[in-house]
């Protein structure tokens, strides 16, 4: 269990920097470098990826995906690369740290409110959250509590899936280190891709709940 916890790499001005943060920096370089290379040599591939994302989002939200594509596209690219980058030798998976997944879930929480207020104004957004207007002072706290629990569930779902994959690989590695961890690592990669998709789809559904016209 101790090998899967985040380790401090160096101290900078009194702040301890963990290997999660260093992995995230390397991930940013890889993503930006990858996009630059793909854009020069395979531009149609990039277009196909963006079209796939845009179609998925507009399918779930039943409206054009244009204003929401930057945030949701960044979310899925970040989580996808983060879950998969663990197989590279020195780099650790950032999402096996609860801090990373909690940060992502908190950005989803604020994104819901930002998109809702941008679409409907502050009062309209509050009216959407307290849906049946007759019971205003009951539904609004209930909805806020529900949103907080949804955020917590998002963070714990991603964290729990990724860290249980890592723990299984760790335990199998203790028992039989030569070839046997490989199927477990493959299962972990598959879980990582699926959980990236799930996180983004759930974020899309939450934004849709705040933005849709329910009359």
């Amino acid at each position, binding site marked *: *269990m101790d090998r899967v916890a985040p380790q401090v790499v160096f101290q900078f001005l009194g702040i301890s920097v963990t290997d999660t943060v260093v992995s995230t920096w390397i991930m940013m370089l890889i993503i930006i470098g990858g996009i630059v290379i793909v854009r020069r040599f395979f531009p149609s591939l990039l277009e196909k990826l963006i079209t796939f994302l845009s179609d998925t989002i507009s*399918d779930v939200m039943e409206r054009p995906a244009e204003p929401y594509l930057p945030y949701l596209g960044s979310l899925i690219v970040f989580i996808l690369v983060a879950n998969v980058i663990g197989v590279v030798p020195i780099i650790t998976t950032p999402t096996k740290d609860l801090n990373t997944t909690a940060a992502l879930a908190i950005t989803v929480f604020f994104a819901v409110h930002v998109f809702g207020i941008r679409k409907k104004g502050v009062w309209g957004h509050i009216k959407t959250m307290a849906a049946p207007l007759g019971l205003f002072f009951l539904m609004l706290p209930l909805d806020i509590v529900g949103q907080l629990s949804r955020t917590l569930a998002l963070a714990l*779902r991603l964290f*729990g899936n990724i860290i*249980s994959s890592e723990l299984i690989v760790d335990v199998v590695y203790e028992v039989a280190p030569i070839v046997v961890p490989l199927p477990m690592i493959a299962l972990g990669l598959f879980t990582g891709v699926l*959980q990236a*998709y799930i996180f983004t789809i759930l974020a899309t559904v939450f934004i849709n709940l705040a933005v849709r016209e329910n009359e």
Partner: protein
Amino acid sequence: MESQTLLTIVVIITSGIGIMASTVTLAIVEGRAVLKALEGMVRQPEVANRLFTSLIVGMALLETSAIYTILVISLLLGLLGG
């Protein structure tokens, strides 16, 4: 028997029962979800894509309960270790 041994025994038994109960319940319920989704796909092949997306999202939400169980038991076992 001393309290550390008693704690170890209780944690081991609780972990076993907890994992067993959550995994069996989860497997049964997810199997039923897949069954209903497949029946729907057979009945109306044109909404198969939408059904597949809803199935995947529903199964991820169901899976969360089992993940909570794994998390709590890992914490318990970590606490046991020292």
